């Protein structure tokens, strides 16, 4: 677009604006000038017309005066008429011919009066003849009869003389004697002079003149073709009007004139002629139009010049702005390294350039700053991410299942509030029988807490083999952490040592949240005395709390991230809600269910409030040991029986079988086997008893096979129980009764091998009763 730049637009509008102004003023000026010019032309033309009229009048008057003088003289000297006529004709070149004709006598026989006619020949010589001698007597002619009426003299109609080949007009005046006309003087006037006069007038260019006679015919006209013709109707009407001096005709009769014309007329006194000066309107305004057009052209030229100067000036002034705009695009693209035009003057553009330069420099500094900060931030984020990974690496897996005999299972979850946190958990096998577990929470959050956490977790693992018990471990750990702890960081820690065989659990706490025992009816918060937090007081002691995990029971350890999880109204989740949540978990659920349930409930409680603290949750379940199928063969001797009983009991205890069940099983087996030894082999036979222990899902199965005499304990009668054994004559059948009572199921078969007795002992349920 041509008008894109401010310079070209300004120049354009300057040009358009000044042209409009120029046009308006010029138009106004033109209108005023036209009126003045018209006025002026009116004056001049009127004067010219009057002047021409008076010139013609002077000539006409001379003719008239000459004729009248001749008439007066000839009236008395009729005989001298011819010489008088000659003299007069010689003196007045305007007259082409003079005639002095008289009325013929009333008597036709009387001699006719001499009526001389003198005319000028083409060569200038004068010739004369007597008209009275003409064959065609003049006195019957109209011109004579008419002339007799012109007492004061009158101009006749022009006519074309055939004999003299020219246009002529007559002036007639009467010759009077005694008050009666006796003849007339007739002067033939050529109209050549009239043409000459008209031609000699100082007319404006394009103007033409004419003379109209009394009948409205053109007596003379600058256009010879129109001579003798009748004037146009419009012209004649206008001349007949009141304002005959100057009038405007839309169309001229003269074909040489174009457009409307102005007609100025003046009457010629003494005649009834009228002189007209016709000026074409376009000629009147020609000069002013010319000047106006010239001025307009010059003005336009000047405007163009002004516009050009404006364009150049503004373009020159704005040139730095264009560069600035270009550079601003650079800035937008982030390229700040460029040259700026030097500020020429301290004007607005100069100041803008300087500010732009300053802005560019400061922007560059700022960007550099920003980039540096961003790099720093990125580095920190990356370090934090690495720290996060390292911290995760310090934690053992979230799930641990004792791979050897699946006696216990552990699930853990740790959700740091930030990239790194101060919560910790750890576990490891201290020896093949004992499993060490701990959960802790370092004061504060973030990187300091993470470092302290790392220190704690590493120290704990290193010190555990030496400490052997949770109490000792906390003591040793406390001493180590107290050393050089100027920042007074501290950690709360809950330690547990699980005997994987028996479910025996020794707990010690350093200011940590109490654990919760699940699976034994309602969840139970284990409140026991705790020692001081680790890292602050060197002489702290940590009392131990011992409990025995039952089969399927779960110990839940957690940090205050659970109980102090807050929702939007700053309400804390609290221990009551924690217990309620855990109570919803069915007793048969897997270990992970406790964690899922509690974390889910906490999440729902907190909703979208930000996590304020690290959350750690650890669930430790003891499944009870799994008994391995064991078979033993023994002789039918009591010591062998008891050795087998001891071994069985040991196996069951190692497998974590509840003590009561161990006692019941021992009793049943003793009664049955002692019975077999005492009564199965009469006559001192030797025999063998085979015993097979086999674990079932919810019970222990025992198979007893002996090769003694057939005996089905199920068939023996129940003893009569009176309430006092001492009342009985012989104490017998009690053992079988006891064995049957202690066994949840007993089946007997007999085959080639001997007696088969299949016993089933169910594990006690949660309420302690056998099913």
């Amino acid at each position, binding site marked *: 677009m041509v008008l894109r730049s401010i310079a070209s637009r300004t120049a354009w509008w300057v040009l358009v604006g000044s042209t409009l102004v120029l046009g308006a003023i010029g138009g106004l000026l033109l209108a005023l000038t036209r009126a003045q010019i018209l006025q002026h032309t009116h004056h001049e033309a009127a004067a010219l017309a009057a002047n021409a009229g008076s010139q013609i009048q002077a000539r006409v008057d001379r003719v008239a005066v000459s004729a009248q003088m001749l008439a007066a003289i000839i009236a008395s000297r009729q005989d001298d008429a011819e010489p008088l006529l000659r003299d007069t004709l010689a003196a007045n070149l305007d007259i082409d011919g003079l005639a002095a004709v008289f009325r013929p006598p009333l008597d036709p026989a009387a001699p006719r009066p001499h009526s001389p006619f003198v005319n000028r020949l083409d060569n200038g010589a004068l010739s004369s003849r007597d008209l009275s001698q003409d064959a065609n007597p003049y006195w019957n002619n109209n011109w004579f009869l008419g002339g007799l009426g012109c007492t004061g003299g009158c101009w006749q109609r022009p006519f074309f003389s055939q004999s003299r080949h020219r246009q002529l007009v007559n002036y007639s005046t009467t010759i009077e004697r005694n008050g009666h006309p006796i003849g007339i003087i007739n002067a033939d006037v050529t109209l050549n002079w009239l043409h000459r006069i008209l031609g000699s007038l100082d007319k404006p260019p394009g103007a033409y003149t004419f003379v109209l006679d009394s009948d409205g015919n053109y007596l003379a006209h600058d256009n010879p073709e129109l001579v003798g013709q009748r004037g146009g109707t419009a012209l004649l009407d206008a001349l007949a009007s009141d304002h005959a001096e100057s009038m405007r005709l839309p169309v001229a009769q003269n074909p040489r004139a174009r457009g409307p014309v102005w007609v100025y007329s003046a009457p010629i006194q003494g005649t009834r002629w009228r002189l007209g000066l016709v000026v074409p309107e376009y000629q009147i305004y020609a000069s002013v139009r010319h000047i106006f057009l010239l001025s307009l052209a010059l003005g336009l030229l000047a405007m163009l010049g002004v516009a050009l100067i404006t364009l150049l000036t503004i373009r020159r002034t704005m040139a730095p702005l264009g560069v600035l705009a270009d550079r601003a695009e650079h800035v937008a693209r982030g390229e700040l390294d460029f040259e700026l035009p030097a500020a020429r003057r301290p004007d607005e553009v100069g100041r803008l350039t300087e500010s732009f330069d300053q802005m560019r420099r400061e922007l560059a500094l700022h960007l550099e700053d920003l980039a540096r900060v961003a790099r720093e931030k990125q580095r920190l984020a990356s370090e934090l991410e690495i720290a996060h990974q390292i911290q995760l690496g310090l934690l053992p897996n979230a799930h641990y299942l004792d791979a050897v005999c699946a006696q216990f299972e552990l699930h853990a979850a740790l959700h740091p509030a930030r990239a790194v946190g101060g919560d910790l958990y750890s576990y490891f096998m201290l020896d093949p029988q004992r499993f060490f577990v701990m959960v802790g929470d370092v004061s504060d959050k973030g990187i300091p807490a993470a470092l302290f956490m790392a220190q704690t977790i590493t120290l704990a693992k290193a010190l555990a083999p030496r400490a052997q018990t949770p109490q000792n471990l906390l003591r040793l750990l406390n001493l180590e952490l107290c050393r050089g702890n100027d920042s007074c960081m501290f950690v709360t820690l809950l330690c547990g040592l699980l005997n994987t065989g028996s479910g025996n659990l020794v707990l010690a706490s350093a200011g940590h949240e109490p654990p919760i025992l699940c699976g034994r009816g309602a969840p139970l918060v284990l409140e026991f005395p705790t020692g001081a937090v680790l890292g602050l007081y060197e002489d702290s002691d940590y009392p131990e709390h011992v409990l025995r995990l039952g089969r399927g029971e779960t110990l839940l350890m957690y940090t205050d991230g659970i109980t102090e999880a807050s929702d939007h109204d700053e309400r804390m989740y609290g221990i009551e809600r924690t217990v309620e949540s855990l109570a919803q978990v069915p007793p048969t659920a897997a270990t992970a269910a406790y964690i899922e349930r509690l974390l889910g409930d906490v999440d729902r409680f907190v909703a979208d409030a930000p996590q304020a603290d690290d959350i750690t949750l650890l669930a430790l379940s003891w499944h009870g040991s799994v008994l391995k199928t064991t078979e033993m063969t023994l002789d039918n001797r009591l010591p062998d029986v008891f050795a087998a009983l001891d071994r069985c009991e040991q196996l069951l205890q190692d497998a974590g079988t509840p003590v009561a069940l161990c006692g019941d099983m021992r*009793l049943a087996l*003793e*009664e049955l086997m002692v019975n077999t030894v005492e009564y199965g082999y009469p006559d001192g036979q030797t025999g063998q008893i085979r015993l097979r222990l086999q674990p079932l899902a919810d019970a222990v199965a025992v198979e007893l096979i002996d090769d003694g005499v057939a005996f089905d304990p199920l068939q023996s009668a129940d003893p009569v129980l009176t309430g006092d054994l001492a009342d009985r004559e012989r104490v017998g059948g*009690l053992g079988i009764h006891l064995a049957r009572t202690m066994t949840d199921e007993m089946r007997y078969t007999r085959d080639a091998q001997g007696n088969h007795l299949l016993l089933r002992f169910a594990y006690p349920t949660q309420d302690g009763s056998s099913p």
Partner: protein
Amino acid sequence: MTLSLHSEFSAPDRAVVHVGGRLDAMTFGELDEAMLALLPQLPDGGTVVIDLTGLTYISSAGLRSFAKVRKTMRAHGGHTLLLNPQPQVRKVFDIVKAVPVNEVFTSTQELDAYLDRMQRQITEGDDEA
């Protein structure tokens, strides 16, 4: 774990036998022998208190030994009292209804109160006689 036995005379007519460990078909003989030696030392109408606090296990053989002791004592007009049986032992006693419940005491205080009451009855009986 085997049987442990310890006896003492808390009064001339009252012997206390502490039985510990396991009383089963292997060990009941020891108790029988010990009681055979002990009981004759008590006068007629004496009392033997068997403290079961340390006894963790008993089988039918053990029950028979206690029944013998009680028969012997009864034959001489004496009494046999059982003190503080542990759950496992108590369970066995309950199953076979081994002894009258009023002869089993869960604590020394209970036993002492019973013995005092019995003492008074005897004394009053003597007075009447």
